[in-house]
């Protein structure tokens, strides 16, 4: 269970999401209601195997080679902040 406000803020910090006080207040009871609901998973007779392969494919690897992208400007145009062709970010401290 997410027992306290502090615990929720800890998880939110790990998830890199800031939450307002109102959101914390709304989320706490909701999350615990959902976790209660998920408890049912413990009552399903399970098998001792976690392998669920969704397709018949074998693992496939591709050559680790660089291929040029045809329109780098289209990527650059999405930068929220830039200087010339450089991406601008605040310091990583």
């Amino acid at each position, binding site marked *: 269970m*997410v027992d306290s406000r502090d615990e*929720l803020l800890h*998880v*939110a*910090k*790990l*998830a*890199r*999401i*800031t*939450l*307002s006080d109102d*959101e914390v207040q*709304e*989320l706490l009871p*909701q*999350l615990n*209601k*959902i*976790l209660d*609901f*998920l*408890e*049912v*998973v*413990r*009552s*399903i*007779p*399970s*098998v*001792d*195997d*976690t*392998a*669920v392969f*969704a*397709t*018949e*494919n074998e693992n*496939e690897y*591709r050559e680790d080679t660089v291929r040029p*992208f045809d*329109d780098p400007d*289209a*990527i650059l*145009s*999405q*930068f*929220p*902040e830039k200087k010339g062709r450089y*991406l601008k*970010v*605040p*310091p*990583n*401290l």
Partner: protein
Amino acid sequence: MPMIEELVGRMRNGELLPSEHLEEKISVLEERDHELNAFITKTLELAREQAKRVDRLVRDGKGGKFYGLVWGIKDNFALKGVPMTCASKMLENYVPPYTATAVERIIDNNGVILGKLNMDEFACGSSGETSYFGPTRNAHDPERVAGGSSSGAGAAVAAGMVDLALASDTGGSIRNPASFNGVVGLKPSYGMVSRYGLADLAMSLDVPGPIAPDAYGVALAMDVLQGYDPRDRTTVRRRLEFVATIDAFNPDGIKIGFSDVLLAGADGPVRRAVIHTLKFFEKKGAEVVDVDLPDVRKVLPVYYLVVYPEFASAMQKYDGILYGHRAGGSTLQELVSRSRGEGFGKEVKRRIILGTYVSLAENAGKWYTLALKARKALQEMFNRAFQQVDVILSPTVPNLPFPIGERIDDPVKMYMSDVLTVPANLLGVPAVTFPGGWEGRLPIGVQLMGPRYSDPLLVSAVRFFEKEGRPWCA
């Protein structure tokens, strides 16, 4: 609404020009969309250009598979140069630099793209109400939800604004809105359609698929959408025949699995429509077999425990750095956390936080591993059932489309809408929904689920019902 087969025929033999047909669709769009809110981005100019090109191609006998049929694309698929929002503030201004494989195949086969369709934010929802751009309204009753997460796809097809829609299904996101809007939707077998260019929700469950007014539309779409894609290595090297086998359904010798447990909690009219449909197939020669599905109602916790961690992981890329919503911040970490705090809506945050919580080192073995083991057990239970029967029939959603706002503040109640659709995703098997009844003007979807790669059989069964049967009416 002309059925897709007839429409294609008219366009193929020159009775109807693709560009004339497009204008008809645009006039429906202009009349209905201010009310239904099915579109996030309209691409009228692009569509008109495409349609003119298709006019010429059809004249030259190169109509492709679609001859200018008009498509809407759920807004979690990329189309180069056209905004792709995933119905989120996070991607409100995002313009993708590439095109999804499924969209590319539609365009290569002369589908005309009329726009990007509304949806629950990042496909998180079962009602269409979590969209940053406002809820989509049900095409048959605008006071009610359109279902979700492919809300715009369901409503746009039902209202006749588009002929076909490309959507995606992680736990019912194609089938739920198709059901609530009285149209046909197929969740294909996992790996049949490429996910390249689709924003992930949960990559072990996601599959793109079509919504159409009828079985023929679904079949025609699947003949184009399916196939191996080197850019998505989970696609299978297999080809299924849809249009070629659409009239091949023979109820004699078909075994339909059913269990009363599938009706638990269902509204009265939904029950009656399902029994009506079951009896129809039985009368035509199919054998109804009682299947043992004791744990079917426990699938939801398993489903969400798989979804949350996969979703939290898939959402890490939205950080406000390279693209998407960027909030201010004096450090990188502050910028990322604030961008995500501002950019995501409630349900998306709930799921990311739950996914992070479930994945905490101190929770190892307590949630996710249990869910995987239970997923395996459910898979074995359904595999046993599929040894006895060809398909399993059930409601698509236990309830009728509900009024807008009724469930949005109660996530657990909202999740209950998915109880009968999530098994197909957990198993990777196909499931189709079609209108099996009407309660007044509200449609009731019936679902057929089959073993892996039985997709064409399911679509042909719907076609058989369309031709030989009649939906139940209150």
